[in-house]
């Protein structure tokens, strides 16, 4: 590993002077490799292992299949990434996904696809806004606030939506998610380039805008940010709004890709979105994380599930392996940074 080509969000790239040899220098080099690279490496290793077990797994199609599964989990976890970076957590992701998906389907008749799409995103923004205001102004812990919000949304979903009507899925959404398109001669579902584009945009926002960087300051040391004169509450609320919008976007994408919607469609993302973020190298204490890393984390989880499916081990073993991977990841770099 060399220390060149480090994105700004991560370690320093100053001139290394008189590096001591041995473990500490290996460590230093290790610490200067951006964390978001590790999950990608882990994914490649798993991919090769899969190929050793079943040589027919090393194909572009298999790669695309895993990547498509991973990108959907990633899109659902982007909002979670934003929340974790600012030292929070968003456990209202599952029902934000369901709520926006159902809002979209419910409004697509009266408002048309674009209108319904905007309405879904606005719904996500409102949910995020409420989360952010309660957390930063009332001082409730993020975990409790978002759990309560998740429950509240569940009630609203059950009360508002009449599930028998929600069947027609508009072309427009199918076109950007499940439709097969050809990129550089490779056949893939449209959601894959969509998700990667979203990742790129988000990473640019996080790494290269004032707002993105202040999110990291707030997550790393909220009190330092406040005493440095940053509008911490506003940054926090903005973070949760973005988190809500991204979860809402995920809801629409999931509807388009799986072509079904229900009140509990987001439930599986409660823990797996956090898992993808943690495996992607974000610190659960905040101040560290990247959407590229989250995609890497999702790829690792997706590759595990591909392997488990190929080896016929069953969904239980897959969950068990997820747990073990999370433990491995946090024992590698889950401790508090400053002790």
């Amino acid at each position, binding site marked *: 590993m060399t220390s060149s080509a480090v994105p700004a969000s991560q370690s320093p790239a100053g001139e290394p002077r008189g590096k001591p040899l041995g473990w500490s220098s290996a460590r230093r080099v290790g610490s200067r490799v951006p964390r978001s690279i590790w999950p990608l490496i882990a994914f490649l290793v798993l991919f090769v292992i899969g190929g050793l077990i079943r040589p027919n797994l090393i194909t572009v199609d298999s790669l695309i299949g895993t990547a498509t599964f991973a990108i959907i989990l990633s899109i659902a976890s982007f909002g979670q990434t934003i929340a974790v970076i600012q030292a929070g957590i968003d456990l209202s992701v599952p029902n934000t996904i369901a709520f926006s998906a159902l809002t979209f389907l419910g409004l697509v008749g009266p408002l048309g696809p674009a209108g319904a799409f905007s309405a879904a995103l606005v719904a996500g923004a409102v949910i995020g806004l409420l989360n952010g205001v309660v957390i930063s102004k009332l001082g409730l812990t993020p975990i409790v606030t978002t759990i309560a919000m998740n429950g509240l949304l569940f009630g609203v979903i059950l009360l508002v939506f009449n599930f028998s009507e929600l069947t027609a899925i508009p072309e427009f959404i199918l076109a950007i998610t499940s439709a097969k398109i050809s990129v550089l001669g490779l056949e893939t579902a449209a959601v894959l380039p969509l998700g990667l584009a979203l990742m790129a945009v988000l990473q640019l926002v996080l790494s290269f805008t004032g707002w993105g*960087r202040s999110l990291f300051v707030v997550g790393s*040391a909220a009190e330092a940010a*406040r005493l440095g*004169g*940053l509008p911490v509450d506003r940054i926090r609320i903005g973070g949760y709004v973005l988190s809500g919008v991204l979860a809402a976007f995920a809801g629409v994408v999931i509807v388009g890709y799986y072509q079904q919607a229900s009140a509990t469609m987001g439930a599986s993302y409660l823990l797996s979105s956090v898992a993808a973020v943690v495996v992607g190298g974000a610190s659960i204490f905040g101040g560290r994380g990247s959407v590229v890393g989250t995609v890497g984390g999702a790829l690792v989880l997706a590759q595990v599930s591909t392997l488990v499916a190929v080896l016929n081990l069953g969904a239980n073993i897959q969950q068990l392996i997820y747990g073990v991977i999370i433990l491995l990841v946090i024992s590698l770099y889950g401790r508090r940074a400053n002790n």
Partner: protein
Amino acid sequence: MTDARVGAAVPAAAPGHPDLPDGPWSPGEALLVATDLVKSYGPVQAVQGVSFQCNPGEVLALVGENGAGKSTVAKMLAGAVTPTSGSIAVGGQPLAYGSVRQSRQSGVRCAFQELALVPDWTVAENLSLPDGAPYRGFSQKKSVVAAAELLEAFDLPHIDPRATVGTLSLADRQLVEIARALAGRPKLLILDEASSALTPPGVAWLFQRIRELTAEGGSVIYVSHRLGEIAEIADRGAVLRDGKVAGEFTRGSWTDDQLISLMAGREAARFFPDPPARTTDATALSVADLRSEGVHGIDLSLGAGEILGIGGLQGHGQAELLRALFGAAPATADSWTVAGRAVSGTTPVRSVRHGVGYVPEDRKREGLALEMSVGENLLVPWFKAYQLGGRPRLSRERGWIDGILGALSVHTRGPNELSGALSGGNQQKLVFGRWMNRSRTVILLHDPTRGIDVRAKQELYEAIVDLAKQGVGIIWFSTEVEELVHVCHRVVVLYQGTVIDELTGVRLTGDAVVGASMGLRAAA
């Protein structure tokens, strides 16, 4: 029973009860022998080969500047920190390292600088729980009775044993902490800056307790940087500098000046720059009847280019005053202006816009985002949500950043190094430097030189004086009287949340500052 032990300790600790537990040592022998103690934290050597001994019935002072390694030594003796190498023997027996419990059981007790009281426990719980077995019953009632007896025996009847420790004043908490250390009738009592918040009667109380203990043959290690107290109580002492023993002294054989130069080191003999001559009469900040939590009506006026020192004992409203002025704590005032503009109900965001900067007390928690780069930490107050950030912003601001890093001689591999990797002094420079050359009107400093090395101090003094030359008004709370006396134009001393005295010109002397912080207003 837990509480019974506390109760049992009372008569023994009370005066006129000289019987000591039979130790394996003979009277002439040293009670404590510390040999070649070393403690390193990663690449940093906090303590590098410290040896000393302490005889029964003796008060041994450990003096040194902040960051000299005194506290680390005290923590090693108390068992809270495991030495990297070296040995400690108490009464001929080697001390168990890294176990406060075992140290306590072998008769070594410590009152820590950072209070070791649990804030959500009551006084009674804090006094009795540490000595009890964890799997025994615990009776609130009995512990309250025992604690009341103990506090009574130690002449602290004003402390309510049922009160939650978090609600006590800092001074009372220190008294409780000391009482807890005394309760076990220790062979060796370590007082680690335990008097930092005590008023003169409190210090007198502490000295009374120390004399009782030494009269029974117990020993005391008194860690402090208050030379006046050391002159009164210490029989012998060792001076620590940069983690090493720089010299030793015995009662009556030293002068303050000698000790100070020992503490500071010869080559870095302390040089305080004089405050610059003021060129303007413009007012940078004025506030009348400022009220906030812990601040009870303070009038202040600060001129442009003036360095105003804030003195006083710890916990008398200095921190609160600075926080209130910066808007970090809610505050009200009759009138409040910054550079002539009226201010009301300010927040940190608005203060920065008004031209105020603040260097908070705890640089690691309140000052820096340790996981972010040096450059971005400098830029924190100047982030704009809708502008560029990260790399592109850093290269755009490169000139300013390099200027600051150069002016303060920050040791860093560059603006992209993580600020957590820097030493304490360099971190402090970052928190300070972010306000430089950014057209500030007022800069509020909370003890910026605490715990940093002498060179870094020197560089900060010069930077502060430079800022004043540029016409920035500076309010500087310092716990080092010397700084106040030498570098400030004017010093106001706070006592119990109000200004008790204002010192300028010939009245601005170390004795006057110390006197005023004890609550004595000198005749004008």
